[in-house]
């Protein structure tokens, strides 16, 4: 007894004792849960395994980016779902960033009216649950847009209906490679030209019209290649046949509603991050830049934004992460993402709750952890170096 008391009083040995107790407690409770699982599985005649993934899925998916039929395997179905998750996330992130940056800048404008309208818009958007946004937009598309027969018609090539949006589908023909090549070449040129201009300015002080030249090159070169190679893109237009449109690209109402809702919701948060980032830059920086005689645009692009970027990027990344995780709410409106395929229909058909949920959670964990690792790496690369 006296010996135990002595161990407890000694700080380092106490630390060891506590750690052993914690590890025992954690492993003990895990062991308990797993032994329960084994007992329950034995009672229900179930076994644990991932062999169900290779069996045919037997259900259809209404939006497939890769080839898939209902005879494909469950694994394939999960892959299709994962791609659908990525599709929504990528489009949502692009839209949300554009909208968020614009809103954030208007929020700081000296125009009273625009500033306040934006303020109330942002407050309303971000204080309403994301699920509600999704259901609201889905409901609006399904219930208030017209049937295909009286679709909103945009020049006979694009149509808005309650069954989704129909737009022309570009079809690549032979010779398209030249255009791709031209795009790559133009981008490479733009990057090098910008570097050259920067070096020139640093050495001689001469400024080149970088933006104008690059813009012209980026537009003109691919356009030239397009014409020279004989317009190697044709469009397939949607046509009304019977009760619905055929042909063209069909954007499902679920996809449109989900992307739009995620983008609008996240944009409100991004706007606040952008605003906070710009406000975080000390007033003296702007004043010094103005005292040097820089024009307002240059003050923003050369002094404020490079510093604000350091403040904005970390919360921005976590907004991207939130958007990706929120896309799992797709199941509420029947968009077939990872949760709806693997964690929804596959789960119900095979009865493999544990295996499917493990896979779904593992997938999201991989996405989350890799994004936050990238974020940490970026953070350390732009951090101010204390000397």
């Amino acid at each position: 007894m006296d010996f135990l008391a002595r161990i407890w009083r000694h700080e380092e040995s106490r630390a060891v004792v506590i750690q052993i107790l914690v590890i025992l407690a954690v492993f003990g409770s895990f062991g308990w849960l797993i032994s329960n699982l084994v007992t329950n599985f034995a009672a229900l005649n179930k076994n644990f395994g991932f062999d169900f993934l290779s069996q045919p899925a037997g259900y259809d998916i209404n939006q497939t980016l890769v080839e898939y039929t209902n005879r494909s395997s469950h694994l394939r179905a999960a892959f299709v779902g994962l791609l659908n998750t990525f599709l929504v996330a990528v489009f949502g992130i692009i839209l949300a960033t554009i909208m968020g940056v614009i809103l954030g800048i208007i929020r700081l404008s000296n125009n009273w009216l625009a500033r306040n309208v934006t303020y109330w818009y942002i407050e309303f958007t971000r204080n309403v649950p994301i699920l509600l946004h999704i259901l609201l937009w889905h409901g609006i598309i399904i219930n208030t847009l017209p049937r295909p027969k009286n679709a909103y018609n945009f020049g006979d090539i694009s149509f808005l209906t309650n069954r989704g949006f129909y737009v022309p589908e570009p079809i690549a023909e032979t010779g398209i490679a030249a255009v791709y090549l031209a795009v790559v070449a133009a981008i490479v040129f733009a990057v090098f030209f910008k570097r050259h201009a920067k070096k020139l300015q640093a050495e001689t002080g001469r400024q080149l019209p970088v933006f104008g030249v690059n813009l012209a090159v980026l537009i003109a070169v691919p356009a030239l290649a397009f014409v020279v190679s004989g317009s190697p893109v044709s469009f397939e237009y949607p046509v009304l046949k019977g009760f619905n449109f055929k042909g063209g690209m069909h954007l499902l109402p679920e996809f449109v509603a989900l992307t739009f809702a995620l983008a609008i919701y996240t944009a409100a948060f991004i706007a606040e991050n952008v605003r906070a980032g710009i406000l975080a830059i000390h007033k003296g920086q702007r004043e010094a830049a103005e005292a040097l005689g820089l024009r307002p645009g240059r003050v923003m692009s050369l002094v404020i934004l490079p510093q604000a970027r350091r403040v904005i990027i970390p919360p921005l990344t976590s907004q991207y992460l939130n958007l990706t995780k929120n896309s799992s709410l797709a199941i509420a409106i029947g968009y077939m993402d990872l949760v709806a395929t693997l964690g929804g229909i596959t789960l119900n058909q095979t009865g493999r709750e544990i295996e499917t949920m493990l896979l779904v959670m593992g997938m999201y964990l991989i996405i989350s952890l890799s994004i936050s690792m990238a974020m940490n790496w970026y953070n350390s690369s732009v951090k101010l170096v204390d000397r």
Partner: protein
Amino acid sequence: MADKQTYAPGSHPDLPPPPGTIGIVGWLRTNLFSSVNNTILSLITIYFLYWLIQSVAGWFVLDAVVDASSRAECREIDSGACWAVITKRIGQFVYGFYPHAERWRPNVAFVLLFVAVAPLLYPKTPMRRQLLWFSAAYPFVAYFLICGGILGLPEVGTNTFGGFMLTMIVGVTGISASLPLGIALSLGRQSRLLSVRVISIAFIEFMRGVPLITLLFVASTMLNYFLPPGTTFNLLLRVLIMVTFFASAYIAEVIRGGIQAIPKGQYEAADAMGLNYWQTTRLVTLPQALKISIPGIVNTFIGLYKDTTLVVVIGLLDPLGIGRAALADAKWNGLSTETYLFVALFFFVSCFAMSRYSLWLENRLSTEHK
């Protein structure tokens, strides 16, 4: 000339400000029409507002129908929004299927909630010390009030809970249970003991890495596999546990930010005073860390409160669930915009109030020069 009067330096009476810089005209000029770009922006905004008011106000209010018994009847009366879908079921939207005769009980619990949180949120509350005891007892009071089963209150099953009442229950329970767990996790993450630190980090990163909806699926479909055979477990309780775990990971990160913001001198001073780990934590670390993380905690709470809507996916009847049930009724089919806007308005009002509170608190706690 007669009016060419001379003044001694400094004795000239103040001239009025130039016209157009004061009053309404001056305000309009500086705030709306100070430059060409600004004028264009103002005109666009004014046009947008005009369009919004003209097209939406009529639908919302002027042409709206408040009392009707089905969608078809609404359409016969007027062309605007059919709010009847809400007014006919307002009781369900607030209480779910909680028995009519007992609805005073959640009402009392709701009022008492404000009495319980006032001393926590507003430091100048009169009789704060005494009220804090009530705050500590509130969870039990509310539980017995709402679930009943003692003191002659009839028992009410949790499967009848729904509507905004369910939102409040999940939100308030989630945040008050996750706060202690979150504090423990944040301390664990900073611990010198390797095993404690690793376990805390693993828990936090796992909870933050997966969507809440997958955790709710786990609660609803497979939690039973992990419990001894024959255990039955209330679905609401399972959801509350998962929501608590989820929120505690976020709270832990907020509090960790608070702990890291404490200057090193504080710990050195505590060490110099001879305080041990728990004394330092209780008397030095936590009081300061919690104080600076209150705004973050409130923001986490707003997020959690909004996330309570996800319980609809596993079949609990929160306001969204009630709304979807109403829409599934053939009489009200297709009125999704009205239903969801109503629920959205409820969430907007409560979340906006909370975010204003958090802003007020941030200003009050900030010691920066203005």
